[in-house]
């Protein structure tokens, strides 16, 4: 009788042990999953060539919109496209917002002031526009911050006009980057031949898509919020 009781107790404890082990293993499996990266990063490229420099105000609007949308842990940078854009001097401001909301608010104020300062100081537009160089600069930055979601906003007419001696025949990797061409201004020559404009957009779309990125064109700033899922 005693041995039977002992056996039943042992069996019950083994069953319990199995259950506990299963629960622990399940927890371990759930816990060992790769953590999701919730941070976001955005890079705004502003074309300051003579054809596009007049649209600076819109660039400021876009920056303010992004500052309002991004939160703690997110990153934002603003750069400009000129004769040769792949350099550090092309970055106007950059920041990764602190995990404390109050500090992040302060950073945003400083960021806004820096952009404002650049806009105020701007006098002479560039003669050429090195869009690819700017994209390279932006992708480098976005890859560096290693955010979960990466956005590249290009405010340009997308007309690449490289100065002599600059080589941009390189492959730009745009994996997981959402490229948004904002306010793609039509040039005077586009009015005469609209196909040029269409072709330019199609070329850029092809270039971005073939290199792993996604492509969007948002010409109306008011539509930006609905078109770009920042949240």
């Amino acid at each position, binding site marked *: 009788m005693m041995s039977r009781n002992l056996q039943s107790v042992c069996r019950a404890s083994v069953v319990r042990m199995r259950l506990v082990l299963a629960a622990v293993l399940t927890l371990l499996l759930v816990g060992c999953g790769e953590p999701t990266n919730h941070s976001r990063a955005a890079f705004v490229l502003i074309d300051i060539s003579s054809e596009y420099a007049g649209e600076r105000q819109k660039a400021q609007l876009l920056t303010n919109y992004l500052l309002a949308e991004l939160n*703690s842990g997110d990153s934002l940078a603003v750069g400009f496209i000129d004769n040769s854009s792949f350099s550090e001097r092309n970055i106007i401001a950059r920041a990764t917002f602190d995990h404390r909301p109050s500090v992040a608010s302060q950073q*945003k104020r400083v960021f806004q002031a820096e952009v404002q300062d650049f806009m105020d100081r701007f006098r002479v537009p560039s003669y050429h526009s090195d869009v690819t160089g700017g994209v390279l600069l932006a992708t480098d930055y976005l890859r560096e911050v290693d955010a979960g979601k990466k956005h590249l906003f290009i405010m340009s007419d997308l007309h690449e006009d490289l100065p002599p001696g600059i080589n941009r025949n390189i492959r730009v990797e745009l994996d997981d980057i959402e490229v948004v061409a904002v306010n793609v201004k039509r040039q005077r020559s586009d009015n005469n031949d609209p196909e040029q404009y269409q072709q330019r957009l199609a070329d850029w779309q092809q270039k971005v898509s073939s290199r792993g990125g996604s492509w969007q064109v948002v010409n109306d700033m008011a539509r930006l919020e609905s078109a770009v899922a920042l949240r």
Partner: protein
Amino acid sequence: MLADIFYIWSESPALSLAIWLVISITLLYAGRPHAHQLLRSTGRAIHGTLRVASASIRQLEERVQARNRDVLLAAGREAMEKSIEREFNRVNNIVERDLSQYPALHRKLAETLEKIEEDYHASTDNAPLPPAWSEVMTTIGSLPSTGDPAVASILENIKEVVENSHEETLKAYQKGTNERHKILGGMRPHWRALGGTMNKVQETITGLEERARTIDRQMGEYEAMRKAEDKSVNSLTSSSLTQFFISSLVLVIAAFGGIINFHLIAMPMSEMVGGASYMGSVRTSDIAALVIIMVEISMGLFLLEALGITRLFPVIHSLDDRMRKRMAIAAFTILVIFASIEASLAYMRDLLALDREALQQSLAGAAVAEAQLRWIPSLGQLALGFILPFALAFVGIPLESFIHSARTVLGLIALWMLRVLRVTVRMVGGMANHLSKMLVSLYDLFIMVPLSIERMVRYHRETAAEKPADASEPPTRSSRRAPKKAEEPIADNLPLTTGEA
């Protein structure tokens, strides 16, 4: 492929169809007894199996019903025991509070009575009544004064003396009467005190009588529960359902309170634990805010448990009173600390919201507006942050009611589901049986032509066989029916089981 098989006999569709029909009818006619048997036995098997299943479900239903009844009665008995215990406690309190002071009361009564008696005796010590001076004076006055002047003078003197004595005696009498009135006036508060004391005693006795009546009624209900009478079971079920709905409503309200509390502290929490870190897909700050609310609710539960208001944790109840008191103090202290933290977080939230608003305005290019009367919402949030934890702490009371009544409600739901399942199983079984019968008839309908031929042939044979017999005697009713029985196919007359019947 199928079309090829269809046209195997002829190119003409009609002819092919006719040939196929003939073949199929012939085959079906040949396999009729077996097909009938198959259909009926399948129908009966399904019917029988489902009947057994239904019987099992019924047994389970009865067990669940009995269990529900037991649970309900046990809960009712427990609640009634608590209620009776509480009534006895009240009686005990009354006895302790009022009747324990009875000796003092009695002494007071005795003293009062003694005083009244003394006063009474004091009031009975009458002052000497005025003697019959008036008669003496009248007699002296009526004496003739025309006699001797010396006698007249003596009489006059006597009169004066008597008058003076009379006045003095009258004054003494009036003084004594006044003194007695004073003594009687002094007795008034003693009478009043006596009346008050007697009223107090009456109130106590009346209160005790009421309590005794309540206890009698509750004991009656308890007795009915012990006897497991249907009336008390129905009453308990109804009460349990009411409790369930009321406690659910209160819990929903508490949940909304919790949500408001969460939103009050979630944003400032990101200032403490960081707004960029996540656990899974949820922000760590949100989890931290939830944890704070949960801890507050837990502390509230412990506090109520230690105070003996709820009985969710038997371990806490089994602790001795001193330990429970300590635990209550500890839980209350932690609750106050958390409420203070929440209040400060709520205030911080207001500041952060203000800062964020200013930033948004600045980003939108608008001038930062100076907010008027900002202290009102700040103060409101501060107060809300402090009060909500205490409000949430009381969630233990509806939670206990909910848990207790949920047992009954879940039992009733299980019973209802089992009943529905049983009826469904019975219906499916019956339908399977009838369907098999319908299929048998449908089968016969399809092969009615050969069946008709068979009947005709059989009829002719029978009539041919009966003709010689007709000559000797007329056919009886039973002899006519006998061949008809043999004529019936095997499957239709398969014996029904007792269950089917």
